[in-house]
């Protein structure tokens, strides 16, 4: 089993008008761990799906050991010695480990009868070699996520993968499982397997990599050695793009009317998604929750709205408890809510713009008489809001799905801001929105603040956070890393988003970088 050199030359991948990868060059030397670092949406997964034969590149070339190859599907990539562990595991939940490993590559006796014993033996061999501790006859859905990931790695190794792509492998792992994975990667490398490690977590990348390539907005923006400072990597990853300046008067925070106290939210399996979080938002202030996608922000806002089960702790609005209330009750108590994904949670695509503008207001007496909708009032409301929020459309009766992303978002915001609020929550208020609309939406959010409403923003875009926030709360793995002023530095926020609490991050920035980094990282936060 020799090692393999992999080279990507000028890989471009377009989805319609969207360029996910823009002329990316990447060389993975044989036997190295090469990290691909970048924020969510930077184009890392797209690039790897191209490499694994799932997407066809719009332009560019893949070379394996200096020979150009084309992959028509995953089988071709596997045949060329490339294995991939997807972020969302490709495992059949009701199958055993052995069955999953065998699938597509089955050892059979006469008449196609499965010889799972052979597969079991291979699994045991690999398990023994790398200390995996995987039972070939365990059923996948009964296994912890970390073990499932090892099964994915075994799947690749059984097929003699010499280059292993790990796509955000730590995103779903507990810290302990992450440590174990890092050990495994070291062993694989020692055994001659090259690894492409995709991550946005600086500390992990620094800990495992031989070399680091940083991607931002579909382009390679630089390469770095793992000895580079965390600050350096963070600024490469997040970028220092000139942000749109927003005319924003200083906040005049009033009373802290919205308070989250010791909030813990668990999933059905009993794992904490939001872990003992406490903070508050004052009237006339914008608090932005920053963090990498999937660190509990979504669950936090859903919990406030009353969409989550297994909630412990307290959420107070004007002294009234929101935990245990229905969504309707929460909305009626004066909460405006802009969900993170407008197409699945914010809008009914086949409904007209006018209908979507009253999606959570249709029952109010302004828009209905008894059981009858007041069509005239709804139309009047729509005309006013379309005008006020500058929604670009021919007709209020057009299905909302026909609007551009920015105009759809204006519809959601217009609806949620069209009644007196005691709290305004907006998740990813400008995701997938054109630049012109971003400015407009930001102004509206600030205007709501200036009316004295407490505003809670969730955003994974650091630019947006810095632009809007009066204070910034950073979440990492469901835990609050601290609440810092709105004018905090990107470096500080980057470190906190990577799992350092506010004091640690500040100390880190103050002192000499690399030496202290390892010691700080070793301590529990």
């Amino acid at each position, binding site marked *: 089993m020799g090692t393999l050199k992999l080279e990507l030359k000028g890989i471009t991948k377009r989805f319609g008008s969207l360029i996910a990868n823009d002329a990316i060059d990447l060389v993975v030397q044989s036997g190295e761990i090469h990290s691909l670092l970048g924020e969510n949406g930077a184009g890392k997964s797209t690039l790897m799906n191209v490499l694994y034969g799932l997407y066809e590149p719009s332009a560019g070339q893949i070379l394996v050991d200096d020979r150009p190859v084309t992959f028509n599907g995953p089988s071709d990539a596997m045949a060329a010695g490339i294995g991939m562990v997807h972020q969302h595991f490709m495992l*059949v*939940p009701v199958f055993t480990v052995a069955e999953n490993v065998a699938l*597509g590559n089955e050892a059979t006796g006469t008449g196609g*009868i*499965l010889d799972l014993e052979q597969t079991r033996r291979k699994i045991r061999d690999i398990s023994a070699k790398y200390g995996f501790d995987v039972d070939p006859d365990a059923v996948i859905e009964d296994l912890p996520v970390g073990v499932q990931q090892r099964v994915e790695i075994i799947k690749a190794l059984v097929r003699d993968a010499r280059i292993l792509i790990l796509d955000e492998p730590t995103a779903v792992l507990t810290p302990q499982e992450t440590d174990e994975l890092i050990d495994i990667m070291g062993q694989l490398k020692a055994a001659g397997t090259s690894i492409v490690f995709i991550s946005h977590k600086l*500390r992990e990348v620094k800990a495992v990599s031989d070399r680091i390539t940083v991607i931002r907005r579909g382009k390679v923006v630089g390469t770095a050695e793992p000895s580079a400072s965390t600050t350096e990597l963070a600024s490469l990853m997040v970028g220092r793009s000139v942000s749109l300046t927003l005319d924003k008067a200083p906040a005049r925070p009033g009373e802290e009317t919205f308070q989250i106290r010791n909030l813990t939210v668990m999933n059905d399996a009993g*794992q904490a998604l939001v872990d003992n979080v406490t903070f508050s938002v004052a009237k006339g202030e914008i608090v932005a929750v920053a963090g990498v996608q999937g660190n509990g922000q979504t669950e936090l806002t859903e919990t406030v709205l009353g969409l989550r089960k297994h909630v412990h702790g307290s959420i107070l609005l004007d002294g009234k408890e929101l935990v245990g209330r229905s969504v309707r009750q929460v909305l009626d108590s004066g909460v405006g809510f802009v969900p993170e994904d407008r197409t699945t949670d914010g809008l009914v695509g086949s409904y007209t713009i006018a209908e979507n503008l009253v999606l959570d207001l249709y029952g109010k007496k302004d828009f209905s008489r008894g059981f009858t909708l007041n069509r005239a009032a709804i139309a009047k409301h729509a005309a006013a809001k379309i005008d006020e929020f500058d929604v670009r459309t021919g007709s209020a009766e057009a299905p909302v799905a026909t609007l551009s992303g920015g105009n759809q978002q204006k519809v959601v915001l217009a609806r949620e801001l069209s009644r007196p609020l005691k709290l305004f929550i907006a998740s990813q208020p400008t995701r997938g929105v054109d630049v012109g609309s971003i400015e407009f939406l930001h102004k509206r959010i600030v205007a709501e603040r200036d009316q004295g409403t407490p505003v809670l923003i969730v955003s994974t875009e650091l630019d947006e956070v810095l632009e809007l926030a009066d204070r910034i709360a950073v979440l990492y793995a469901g835990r609050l890393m601290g609440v810092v002023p709105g004018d905090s530095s990107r470096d500080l926020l980057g470190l906190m988003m990577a799992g350092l609490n506010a004091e640690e991050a500040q100390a880190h920035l103050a002192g000499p970088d690399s030496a202290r980094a390892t010691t700080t990282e070793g301590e529990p*936060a």
Partner: protein
Amino acid sequence: MSTTLAPTAPAQDRLIVRNWKVPVVFGILAAFALVVFAVLGPGGTATFRLSQDGDAWQLPNLVLPARATGIVVTVLCLALAALAYRQTQRTGRTERWLGVSFAILFVIGLMVWIIAGTNTQNITLVGLFTGAMLIVTPIVFGSLSGVLCERSGVVNIAIEGQLLAGAFTASLVASITGNALAGLVAAAVAGVAVSFLLAVFSIRYLVNQIIVGVVLNVLVAGLTGFLFEKIMKIKVEGATIYNQPPHLPNLPIPVLSEIPILGPTFFRQSILGYLMLVLVAVIWFALYRTRWGLRIRAVGEHPQAADTMGVNVNRTRFRNVLAGGAIAGIGGAYFTLVAVSSFSKDMTGGLGFIALAALIFGRWNPVGAFLAALLFGVAGNLQSVLSIAVTPVDGHFLAMLPYALTILAVSGLVGRARPPAASGVPYVKG
């Protein structure tokens, strides 16, 4: 290498999810048994005749005193319910054998109660089972068609249509050729034709699979009805000639056919009866022990995973739906080549939907579907056997049993009926 890179997470308390449905259902049924079988049980006896005249070995009749049996059954049911309660308390779930034992016990109690309460008070078990096979056979073929389709991810509501198409074509072709086997082959082809439409519309055109199934049933009913009027009623010299199929003869297997009860039930059948038994075994084996089966199950559970491992999802589905059609078509031939002597309109009479029920109640497993079909067949036949007698419970309620049990199964009240995860979901690559 740093091993404590990330901060340690606080200990997470895991919730034990307890499913109380099983003990609750057991408790209710046990209470029912207590009141109906034991306290209010009829005073007489239930006689089960185990042999028919002319059997090589004559077994004595089994005579059970009704109330005593009821009391025994009730006590055991209560014990099992208590056990289920304890298991749930401890582990959150109950073991499989509990449900099976409970079901068998309850059915025994029910049958003794019914038979002891009727005016005849005795029943021939052999007759009950052999009669049941007339229903069981097409149900099993239909269920196997469903197994193949749904295991690969295509919902097959069109089983009824496949059976009907098979019945019609078998009769027509066997009449024309004078050869029952030719009819059998033609029935398979007809089933494949129905399946082809199901596959094209649901896989190629991504039409909702349930709609296609429902509509195909109507289409086949209309088509066979129309052609029945047009062709099968043509008379030559005063006799219809296109609806007089030769029969598939019964082929008793020596020795085996003399086993009490089992012999007459399973080993005095036509070739179709044996084919059914073979298919149940072969499909079960193929599904769980071969490469073919592994891939099919993967496609039905997680098509994307199968795809990334190089399995062609839609081709697998297409082939399986066609194979299912062939099997259901052959099952349809049973109606006209074995059960009765000619085709009549809508002669499948909803058995295709009982096949669907058996498939679900049998948890999408060929053997499970076979056992469910046996249960449903016996219930159905008991109903017709008792239809003239005065019984404590009307036969129509027995006939509801398959459907009621299936509703309980899909509601998760009895067992856990979990369909293949991707069943009914079209696969679009990318």
